[in-house]
């Protein structure tokens, strides 16, 4: 196992290098000029030229790439072309809301979706199963922002239980932190609950026909033991895979939810940086997201061995 993990970690280096070069090239080929954004749309051509020189954007693309890669090797992601803030601190200030929302969403998803899927799988086609699947279809079908607005209208504006928007750092108290996280978490969980419940249901139904389930029942095991100890564990590999993908996509940007609830997360930072053609910020974020995917894939692969000891690396 250990050599496998080392091998996988080392494999991230060429992957990240490729990502870095491709992202750099794509950004420079995309129309846009950070100097124009910095100076405003009334700026004269001469002023723009001066600003481009100051930013180093008048240099050949290869020179710019070399400078950036050199910075990267020194662990420096550069500074924002627009605000002058170091990219690391910009990302750092936006990570907490995103991670908080992602973790809360995944926890809520697992708590709700896995039992839903198992319950539905127990008697496929019966009322409970159909009810669960109806909720699941709704979760897939209703856009997150619609759920968000409905929650805000009901629980914030009408009942006054929760604030409409905003993020409160955990340093300012666990209470405000959780209070502001409730609505976005519920809104965002809808689609993930639907997805994980369906996967759980189909995986459990599949293993319920296996010989070892029949054996367990023949030995007189209770139905709950059969479901949880034998069926669910053996159905876990696809569930873990879907949850892993969910975590990665949550961390790499939930722009709509962050916008509806005004959370200053990474998703919004990506959009802002792209619209402003803030190259160093976009490059830093894409590198972070790529690394996140690599790391989560590795974690999921390791978890396979926990749930299914037959899997060996």
């Amino acid at each position, binding site marked *: 196992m250990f050599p496998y993990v080392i091998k996988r970690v080392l494999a991230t280096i060429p992957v990240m290098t490729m990502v870095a070069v491709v992202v750099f090239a794509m950004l420079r080929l995309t*129309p846009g*000029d950070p100097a124009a954004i910095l100076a405003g749309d009334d700026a004269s051509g001469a002023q723009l030229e001066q600003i481009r020189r100051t930013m180093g954007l008048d240099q050949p693309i290869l020179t710019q790439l070399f400078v950036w890669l050199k910075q990267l090797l020194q662990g420096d992601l550069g500074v924002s072309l627009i605000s002058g803030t170091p990219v690391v601190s910009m990302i750092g200030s936006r990570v907490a809301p995103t991670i908080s929302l992602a973790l809360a969403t995944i926890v809520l998803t697992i708590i709700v979706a896995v039992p839903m899927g198992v319950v539905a799988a127990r008697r496929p086609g019966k009322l409970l199963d159909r009810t669960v699947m109806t909720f699941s279809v709704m979760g897939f079908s209703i856009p997150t922002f619609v759920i968000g607005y409905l929650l805000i209208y009901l629980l914030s504006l009408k009942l*006054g239980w929760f604030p409409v928007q905003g993020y409160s750092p955990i340093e300012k108290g666990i*209470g405000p932190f959780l209070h502001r996280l409730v609505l976005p978490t519920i809104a965002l969980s809808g689609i993930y609950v639907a997805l994980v419940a369906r996967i759980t249901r189909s995986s459990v139904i599949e293993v319920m026909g296996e010989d070892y389930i029949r054996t367990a029942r023949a030995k007189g095991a209770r139905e709950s033991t059969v479901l949880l100890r034998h069926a669910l564990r053996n159905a876990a590999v696809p569930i873990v895979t879907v949850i892993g993908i969910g975590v990665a996509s949550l961390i790499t940007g939930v722009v709509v939810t962050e916008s509806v609830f005004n959370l200053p997360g990474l998703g919004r930072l990506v959009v802002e940086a792209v619209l402003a053609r803030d190259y160093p910020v976009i490059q830093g974020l894409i590198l972070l997201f790529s690394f996140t995917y690599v790391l989560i894939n590795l974690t999921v692969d390791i978890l396979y061995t926990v749930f299914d000891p037959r899997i060996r690396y």
Partner: protein
Amino acid sequence: MQTYGRFFRHARALLCAAAVMVPMAGHSVAQAETLRAVMQSGLRVMDPILSTAFLTRNHGYMIYDTLLGVDSDFKVQPQMASWTVSDDGKLYTFTLRDGLKWHDGEPVTAEDAVVSLKRWAEVDTTGQALMTMVEGIDAVDDKSFEIKLSQPTTLVLSGLSKLSSRPAFIMPKRIAETPSSEPITEFVGSGPFKFVEAEFQPGISVVYEKNEDYVPRDEPSSWTAGGKVVNVDRVEWVTMPDQMTAINALQNGEVDFIQEVPFDLLPLVEAADGIKAEVMDELGAWTYFRMNHLYPPFDNKLVRQAAMAAVGQEDVLKLLVGNPEFYQTCGAVMGCGNPNGDEYGAEWVVNSDIERAQSLLKEAGYDGTPVVLLQPTDIAMLAAQPIVLGDALRKAGFTVEMKTMDWQTVVTQQGNQNAPSEGGWSIFSTYSILATSGDPFGNTTLSTAGRSSWAGWPDVPEIEALRLDYARAATPEEQKEIAVKIQKLAIDEGVVGPLGQFRIPAAYSTEWTGFPKAPVTLFWNVQKTAE
């Protein structure tokens, strides 16, 4: 407070949740003297001399001060300084008023003002024009400085009191010595608010604290003139990408002010209790389209006139604004409501006259050369114009090719001097605030020096000569006379196509009062009327 109180009432059973809510009550009380404002976008660029962005300018008014201000009658008034002018009009002497201090406690000196003005004049259009007539700007002593001119001009006062992009903000000498092509990195001003750097999150939130050392003028506040009296401890600017969220937050008491309410959401604000919608900039903005004078088909004056005749302002404004309470048609290039505004040619500029457009196209021998029309889709206030323009041009007989993109790409494309068939453009539309468009230097569209002027690159030497005459004019009456001639030429030569004027309302909680009515967003004199 209200939110948490109601939460407790409705959810007594949720003891665990209730327990974690307790710390928030104290948090809310601590912010009682804080005004929370949702601004149109997130502040990222902090240098109001480098950037012409409106938000950066508003940030400038928070922490910096200007030597002169303008009141609602467009009269220049003393702000940081008073002035005298010699009999021949060639020597202005400015004297700083008492009590001016930088946020770091140091006194403001005349040398600070001199260096700040020089940096401003390097990049600002009015400043650049002024500098062609300046023989020297020099400090006389710590409190006064002189501007020596080669000839009399009103640009000294109009430039130093400039309202918007770019106002001549005064900075400490060490900061103002930053080259004008580089953003400043230290944010110390002498204005009524202090910038709280530790709490700044670019694009997300900006915090300003009351500058306790600021001594306001005694005169009543009017636009950027008069007393800037601060009645709050803190002003927080927050950014909300979703305007619906901003309105919900205002209704829920989480924010106090929204700088711009989208027209389609205005009914929600008007129907809500405890919220008032009000236009702060009563002059408003004008929208217009610009044609590329370098290449066919708009290198031909008759074709430009045809395009201007084809499009009707009412069609644009109905789609853009909808509610006639907030828009008006206007043919004046310098804006209706501005002292210099003149509506020459309004009869065919304001209304759509397809027959006239077709006749002009025929006379011009238009050969069907495609018109490349840039269409931004991500900014509501800029998305409607290309749709109406494209439709009107097609009806007149133009071949139109719409290029859809985000606004920042349009901004980049604006400077592209390639032919439309080689990645360039033929038409784009935008808008500007009227307060800065009322003179031929603040109005960017009236720079007509060919390739060195603003996007569109019109080459009309007569207008350039008149702009110089305007700079040399000694009285407002003379200026108006010249401005009328400039506007006539601008319409006849198809320099810019006015598409109408509109005013964007703000919204605020009725717990607050005193929001200054001005073409720029200001936060002095605002006070809380209820707890």
